[in-house]
């Protein structure tokens, strides 16, 4: 948009004052694009400067270039990708299990009065247990096995999806349901065309919460006990005092969290493109 703007202005005006105006406007656009990155860039520069001048011990915080180098080394010998892949799959499978079960339970309690009566109170009671409080029990049950991490992630992602599915279905416009019934929609078509799309905005809110929880729980689980994954990478590096790798692992978690949030937003934009908020 900005470039066509400049082009049109440039074609229309050839006088000196016009050109100055074009450059001033292009500069303003550039400045506005770059402004949000100014503070982080300055911070990194200050960090680099302070670290290389010995103001911060490299044991405390290595300079950003060192972190970058550590990343390149690990990427080249393939270790980085192995651990990334393992963490990513753990998050995905844990989320699929917990989110799937949450969706299923939410559909049951949202759609059926009997289901609500039977299940909702129990689910709400279990919801009050903080997932991290389960860690000792989880270790007793599963040891430090793969299952322990998946269980924790699944446990934490179940409830946000459950609650938002249940409330989403309950808050579907009753007028629309009545209208659809009067047009002969019953059973599966009614669910597919009216109830599910009506509940979808709420369900997706739950999914985004769940994705956030999934990463937090995975970080904790991998840090406590693991023989692979980004958390293992960090804990292993700590033993060998490789602070650069530790910082790298932290940054990797941040990037993964951000990427999965983007993915969730992208899905929202596709599935909710009918929603005025996405037009």
């Amino acid at each position, binding site marked *: 948009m900005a470039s066509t703007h400049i082009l049109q202005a440039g074609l229309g005006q050839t006088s000196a004052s016009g050109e100055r105006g074009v450059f001033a406007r292009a500069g303003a656009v550039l400045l506005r694009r770059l402004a949000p990155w100014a503070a982080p860039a300055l911070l990194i520069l200050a960090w680099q400067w302070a670290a290389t001048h010995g103001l911060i011990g490299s044991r405390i915080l290595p300079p950003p270039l060192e972190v970058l180098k550590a990343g390149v080394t690990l990427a080249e010998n393939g270790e980085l990708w192995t651990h990334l892949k393992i963490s990513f799959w753990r998050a995905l499978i844990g989320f699929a299990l917990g989110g799937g079960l949450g969706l299923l339970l939410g559909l049951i309690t949202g759609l059926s009065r009997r289901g609500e009566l039977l299940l909702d109170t129990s689910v709400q009671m279990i919801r009050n247990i903080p997932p991290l409080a389960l860690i000792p029990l989880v270790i007793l049950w599963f040891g430090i096995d793969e299952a322990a991490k998946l269980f924790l992630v699944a446990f934490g992602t179940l409830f946000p999806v459950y609650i938002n599915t249940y409330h989403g279905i309950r808050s579907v416009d009753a007028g629309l349901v009545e*209208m659809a019934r*009067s*047009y002969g*929609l019953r059973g599966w078509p009614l669910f597919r*065309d009216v109830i599910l*799309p009506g509940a*979808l905005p709420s369900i997706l809110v739950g999914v985004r919460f769940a994705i956030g929880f999934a990463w937090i729980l995975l970080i904790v689980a991998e840090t406590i006990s693991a023989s692979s994954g980004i958390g293992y990478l960090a804990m292993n590096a700590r033993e060998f005092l490789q602070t650069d790798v530790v910082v790298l692992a932290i940054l990797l978690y941040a990037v993964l969290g951000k990427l999965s949030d983007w993915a969730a937003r992208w899905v929202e934009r596709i599935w909710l493109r*009918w*929603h005025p908020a996405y*037009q």
Partner: protein
Amino acid sequence: MTQTTLEGTAGVALAIRGLAKRFGAQTVLAALDLDIRAGEFVAIVGRSGCGKSTLLRLVAGLDRASDGRIDADGAALADSGADTRLMFQDARLLPWKSVLANVGLGLSGDWQPRARAALAEVGLAEHAGKWPSQLSGGQRQRVALARALIHEPQLLLLDEPLGALDALTRIEMQQLIERLWLRHRCTVLLVTHDVEEAVALADRVLLIEDGRVGLDLPVPLPRPRARGAAGFGAIEEQVLARVLRQPELVTPLVDELPIAPGALRWAL
């Protein structure tokens, strides 16, 4: 059956006997009797809360009557197989379906050409691919009308369909509804709070008060009706005066009303 049938009608004749609806201790409709000829256009007016929507919902089969019966062409309406469509004041379009898919709701097989034709009939052919949120209020109501008419209903129930529209759009929509009714020839029950609208469109204007039909006034004006035409204003005032429970009020006194009758039309 003494009911006469209009020529070439696709509509059903309605016979409502002793219809009652109570919500707890509140009686909304009390032993309401009403006969409507096949293909007739009937407007229902009355004060807010008098039970107009309740009556329509009972006829549409959305609620169950406390008492009484509704017959269509001599058999209970619910069992008669007569296609009945209710159009609500809010268009009730599915926001996640395109305009075209909304019109085709509940149809199976090759419904798209039919839906396109129905959209064209209400003048919205070029909006088929839009989302309902991209339409104006009047356009949404026209989509709802197309959705109802695609089923070729024998009985069309309209519950204040134009209540939320601006004055110009209302008049356009009234003309559209009249045109479509003349083409489809279904029986129409139109609930409105606008007496002028009732007189402009209906063969008969009914007033509901105290749970019964309080006034049943034929409108023997030729169509299309001009609002300034002789007789139009007289009928309108007659209905208004009755709604306001001032049956002794005759036309010469209207000028002495503190508020113009035109303004009062909206206060019902």
